[in-house]
């Protein structure tokens, strides 16, 4: 039947179209990229966790260190005795 032949000819011509010879390579590259991106995401997440944990640890350490108060020892009796100068002027 002529119409069927036309359809079969159309299909046969489409079947003759071959994919690019680099298609398989492209597919494997995209799959490897997908794997790397997963690893990359894990690496970034791990880095962020490490940074946050380090920040918390450092902050905790600093807070502990500053808890020790250094009191100013001021002995009022050692302040210069101005009366001595007053007696000289008179």
């Amino acid at each position, binding site marked *: 039947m002529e*119409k069927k032949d036309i359809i079969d000819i159309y299909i046969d*011509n489409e079947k003759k*179209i071959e994919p690019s010879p680099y298609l398989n390579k492209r597919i*494997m590259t995209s799959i*490897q990229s*997908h794997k790397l991106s997963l690893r990359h995401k894990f690496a970034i997440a791990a880095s962020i966790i490490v940074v946050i944990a380090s920040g918390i640890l450092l902050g905790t350490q600093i807070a502990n260190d500053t808890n020790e108060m250094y009191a100013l020892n001021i002995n009022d009796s050692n302040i210069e005795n101005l009366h001595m100068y007053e007696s000289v002027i008179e």
Partner: protein
Amino acid sequence: MQDISQKEKYIITQILNGESSLFEKIVESYSTMIFRVAMGYLHSKEDAEDITQEVFIKAYRSLSTFNMEAQLSTWLYRITVNSCLNHIERKQKKSILSRLEDSTWLLGTRKSADKNPEEYSIAKEKAQAIRKAIDSLPEKQKTAFILQKYNELSQKEISAIMEISEGAVEQLLIRAKNNLKSKLKNLI
């Protein structure tokens, strides 16, 4: 229906154990098969290559869900059909480039540089009409038709892919052919 081969079982097991480079064996074995199905749906080499890549990425990501009770090809065919149907849904309008793709069919048929332009134009119209007729088939008829015509699968194989009986496949193919005959009845 044949079960998955021992070789393929071994390859899949190794890939799931971390030997991802072995997936290349699956790509080499099935890329042309998937490409041909995609061509049947999309009639565009570039789109078909994109779908082929998409199918293998989906297959790689979901390889752990493959139960190895059916053939690997059956599973890949199903992913391909679904991907093609999704792609068609996403494509809203026919682009100028895809109209030019119709010409690629004709490039393969032109045998000499001095082919009659009128004949060329008629051939182009026929190609567009046939393509339109195939694209307008109901989804299941189109799937059965493409799997039989483009991939030369048996009704048994098609029934495994579409998860319907062989009798249902036969009916779909008959209806597809009748539909095409009806749509192309004015084609001379």
